[in-house]
């Protein structure tokens, strides 16, 4: 979690940060937790895949904390410590909510508890991270000037974060598979075109909050370049989440690509929003 002062935070400041983190965790992942298909993911996702998800989420959190914190001089050690904190809070929060909802109890086996907590907790952790940095009401000179993250890696990190937040909420549902298998090539192409159009519109033609800093990148090449990065981030995030939930197993490659395109609508929207709104 990011510091607003160099002198070190007071207890009240830390508590407020955790409060924001918990709020963000709930806000961005409650739809996911209330999805039935996800509860079964807790016992169908293999340990190796859960480990891969844990590692990928940690890298994503580090990327986010490196580029979207409230502070300028984020050092590596601080980024790592903050990411561990957010991941821990996400897991604890997820276990608490699942227990409250009666999804885990004394009769659940340990692998079941760990699987379910992890599957939900990873996405809660991303919500915690985003909530801590984005939901703050504090403004002033310690706030990052907009337009500071213009490097390719920072843009990709923010786009992936936004894409994961939005796409994860619908990824485990049966609807994505049904749509992918019934839409056919023409409609899928239309969906892909809509993703691209949506990204271009949000980033360059809508005067969306934060879009002013992309003004310097205008020109046809700039628009094509920025749109392509955003859409690609949305598709990659969609593919990763679908793989994590086992949605690629037992299907042919064509259907898997179709699923990516369908989920990519949500992913691209999230990626564009992430690039614009996260600071």
């Amino acid at each position: 979690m990011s510091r607003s002062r160099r002198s070190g935070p007071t207890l009240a400041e830390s508590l407020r940060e955790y409060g924001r983190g918990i709020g963000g965790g709930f806000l961005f992942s409650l739809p996911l937790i209330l999805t039935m298909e996800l509860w079964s993911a807790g016992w169908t996702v293999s340990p190796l895949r859960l480990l891969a998800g844990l590692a990928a989420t940690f890298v994503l959190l580090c990327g986010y904390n490196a580029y979207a914190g409230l502070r300028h001089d984020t050092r590596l050690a601080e980024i790592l410590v903050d990411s561990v904190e957010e991941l821990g809070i996400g897991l604890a929060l997820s276990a608490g909510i699942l227990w409250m909802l009666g999804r885990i109890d004394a009769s659940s086996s340990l692998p079941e508890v760990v699987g379910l907590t992890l599957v939900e907790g990873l996405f809660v952790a991303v919500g915690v991270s985003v909530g801590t940095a984005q939901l703050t009401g504090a403004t002033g000179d310690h706030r990052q000037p907009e337009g500071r993250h213009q490097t390719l890696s920072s843009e990709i990190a923010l786009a992936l974060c936004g894409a994961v937040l939005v796409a994860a909420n619908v990824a485990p549902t049966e609807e994505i598979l049904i749509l992918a298998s019934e839409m056919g090539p023409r409609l899928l192409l239309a969906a892909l075109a809509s993703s691209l159009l949506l990204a271009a519109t949000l980033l360059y033609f809508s005067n969306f909050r934060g879009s002013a800093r992309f003004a310097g990148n205008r020109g046809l090449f700039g628009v094509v370049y920025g749109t392509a990065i955003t859409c690609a981030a949305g598709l990659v995030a969609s593919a990763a989440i679908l793989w994590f939930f086992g949605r690629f197993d037992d299907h042919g490659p064509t259907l898997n690509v179709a699923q990516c395109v369908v989920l990519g609508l949500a992913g691209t929207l999230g990626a564009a929003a992430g690039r614009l709104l996260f600071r």
Partner: protein
Amino acid sequence: MKKNWLEWTVFGISLALIVAVAGLLVYQEITGGESPASLVADAGVPTETAGGYAVPIDVRNVGDTSAEDVQVEATLTWAGGMERGEALIPLVPYRSKRRAWIAFSHDPRGGEIRVRVLGYREP
């Protein structure tokens, strides 16, 4: 790095939680086999209900694969008659236990109960 004791505590607990979870997953991955679902059903102590009698059936999955839509059957035989009942359990995760209840109109306490798993699906 300036942090107060609360933040270091949260960090410590978080780190411990993550290491424990990762360790458990690695352990599971190394020791966990790929054995198919393996179900055992046992009848518990019958109770009297408003509409008759009910017997709890505990279904345990001792395999490494979860089983869905598990159908269990219980047969009650006593001197002079028999009664059959079925129940469906939506899910028995690997290495876990789930309970179903099968209802009878005859008092099971005077007879013999046999339980068996009829079938299930792979998730």
